[in-house]
């Protein structure tokens, strides 16, 4: 250890600490006690609708900032068009660095200080914030695949935007069983609840993978796992890894000449961050069970929804996100939220969730053609899939639209 500094007159130090505490106190006065619960249900007024967002803008998952950017672009567009029923959308984005404690803090700030009526949160850690928001009866829209976010009994004010992870496992399993009933199936994924739920979904569809390998988040080099899968004779692989590991794995597979029939995880199959960096030739013939349009896919160059998205993101957001799958995911969510707001006549938890749950067959710029939003199992709005196949430049249809609602029955 270093040489000890001499003792310090503590009264001085304490005074300093007191100062820092008082500084905190000066941040904001104590709010009026009345605005505690049922926040922001100021129906009929022309006050802005406050939408709070807590997203990882820094740290390892800061890529999710694109989701917030996409949502913000849509809200801006709506504001430019006169708002929702004449009311402006006042969205506030806070950084949580994917730290649950900071997300919880942000949720309190958004509800307590900003008077947010709807709070959007990102990722599996949303389930850590859900109890607070539900306790405050604030509408909560979560970007997460976790089954916990579909549990509207436990958390009646929390709604998941995109599908439950297990459904994709079901859809993929069914496609494999239809196409190659004798396949030896392997799953390679990140060691978290996403992979678990996908494997559970496959099991629900009657398919038990021969080999399931998982790696901790952040591990990028999966050569060892690929060697093991190959040695085990796996000829059909569901690749459920995300982030840098996904393109790296596709490249490694090509390099070592291991070419099973590959299914990519829906959120890791876009051209900008997955298939592109992997090298399109290394992903050719791969399948994915998809629900959103990839704005970088030339197939959607003339698509109305994608065009609107690109215009808005260029006008109101960060143009660098024009090809981002994550950004259109956020854009689509914002569109769904605005649709629910238009029907609800207010953003209070009860009114908003009721409107959300009664959505039945509306269009959305982000989802694939021939699909519509409707409240499905777990009140998730997106629950239809179509299996696509990559032809080297674009994702083409390789099956019919499948609804998780039907799968859940069968």
């Amino acid at each position: 250890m270093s040489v000890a500094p001499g003792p310090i007159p503590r009264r001085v130090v304490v005074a300093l600490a007191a100062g820092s505490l008082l500084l905190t106190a000066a941040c904001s006065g104590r709010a009026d006690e009345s605005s505690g619960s049922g926040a922001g249900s100021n129906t009929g007024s022309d006050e802005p609708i406050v939408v709070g967002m807590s997203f990882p803008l820094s740290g390892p998952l800061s890529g999710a900032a694109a989701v917030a950017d996409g949502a913000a672009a849509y809200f801006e567009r709506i504001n430019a068009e006169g708002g929702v029923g004449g009311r402006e959308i006042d969205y506030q984005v806070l950084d949580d660095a994917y730290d649950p404690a900071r997300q919880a803090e942000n949720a309190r700030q958004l509800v307590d200080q900003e008077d947010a009526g709807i709070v959007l949160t990102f990722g599996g850690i949303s389930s850590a914030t859900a109890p607070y928001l539900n306790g405050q009866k604030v509408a909560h829209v979560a970007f997460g695949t976790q089954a916990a976010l579909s549990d509207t009994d436990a958390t009646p004010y929390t709604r998941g935007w995109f599908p439950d992870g297990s459904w994709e496992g079901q859809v993929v399993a069914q496609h494999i069983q239809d196409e190659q009933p004798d396949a030896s199936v392997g799953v390679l994924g990140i060691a978290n609840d996403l992979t678990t739920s996908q494997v559970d979904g496959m099991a629900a569809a009657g398919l038990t993978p021969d080999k399931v390998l998982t790696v901790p988040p952040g591990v990028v080099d999966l050569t060892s796992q690929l060697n093991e899968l190959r040695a085990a004779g796996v000829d059909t692989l569901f690749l459920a890894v995300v982030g840098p590991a996904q393109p790296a794995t596709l490249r490694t597979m090509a390099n070592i000449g291991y070419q099973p029939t590959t299914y990519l995880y829906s959120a890791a199959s876009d051209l900008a961050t997955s298939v592109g960096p992997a090298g399109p030739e290394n992903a050719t013939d791969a399948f994915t069970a998809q629900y959103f349009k990839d704005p970088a896919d030339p197939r959607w160059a003339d698509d109305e929804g994608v065009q609107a998205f690109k215009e808005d993101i260029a006008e109101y957001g960060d143009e660098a996100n024009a090809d981002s799958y994550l950004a259109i995911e956020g854009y689509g969510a914002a569109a769904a939220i605005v649709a629910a707001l238009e029907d609800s006549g207010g953003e209070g938890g009860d009114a908003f969730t009721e409107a959300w749950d009664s959505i039945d067959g509306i269009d959305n710029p982000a989802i694939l053609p021939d699909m519509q939003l409707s409240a499905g199992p777990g009140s998730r709005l997106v629950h239809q899939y179509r299996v696509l196949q990559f032809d080297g430049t674009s994702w083409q249809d390789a099956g019919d639209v499948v609804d998780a609602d039907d799968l859940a029955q069968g």
Partner: protein
Amino acid sequence: MTELLQQTVSGLTTGLVYAALALAIALVFQGTGTLNFAQGEFATLAAFVSFALSTAGLSWWLIVPLLVVLAFVFGAGVERLLVRPVEGSGPLALLTVTAALLLGSNAVVALIWGTDVRSMASPFGGAVYHVGPLTFTAQAIGGGALVLLAMLLCGLIFRFTPLGLRLRAVADNPDSARLLGISTGVMLAVGWGIAAAVGAVAGLVAAPTLGLSPELMTNALLLALAAVTLGGFSSRLGAVVGGLLIGVLSNLASRYVPGIGGDLQLVVPFAVIFLVLLVRPQGLFGRASTVRA
């Protein structure tokens, strides 16, 4: 059997990257007496700079030497400007400085190049060679050779040049070195520079396989720390051997040791740190007398 061999080969390939990073960490440790948590981020930064240079149209064979020089200047500059001021404040302050450097350079990379993964073509091409039942990619062979070359050069500098003699003298006994007219300050900066250059090669070799992202070397850093512990902080050779061993060990353990599995792959290197420090704190190659307190 074939799989065992193949797993060993791929363990060695990744192990080379850990080895180079471990060597860089050991070099800084021997001079400055601290672990540089930012060593991995420096390597990531180097990989991104090489990406920018190759996008600008530079030939890869020009990029490598250029990058080594740039990394050297960068490492030496960081020591001079950011590490020197706290050199007297004890090991904890030094360690915290490197943690701040980690956060800072990570943010700089993300600000300049964004957080999305980018692909970097292998400068060695996409060829695949088969030797018996084993597969080797051109990238693995070429990258491995490049890392080995860098480590060999570093070893030669330390072993056979007057500069290396001075560097070793400062690492061994800085007070004595000063009395012999060696400017220890300059040597520390040079040590950081060489470390950054070796690390840059590691980043350069890792990028085509792993894809460029701000998190390129996050895990490699942890594994390199384990490697340095295993090999011994006072031994450059030990760091390299430690890196190779860690590469092979973590590959084989997650595959063959029941209960470990891929999700606990990272537990292996840390178990290694644990055991080594308890049983042989100076590492496999280190000498007890030079382990800093």
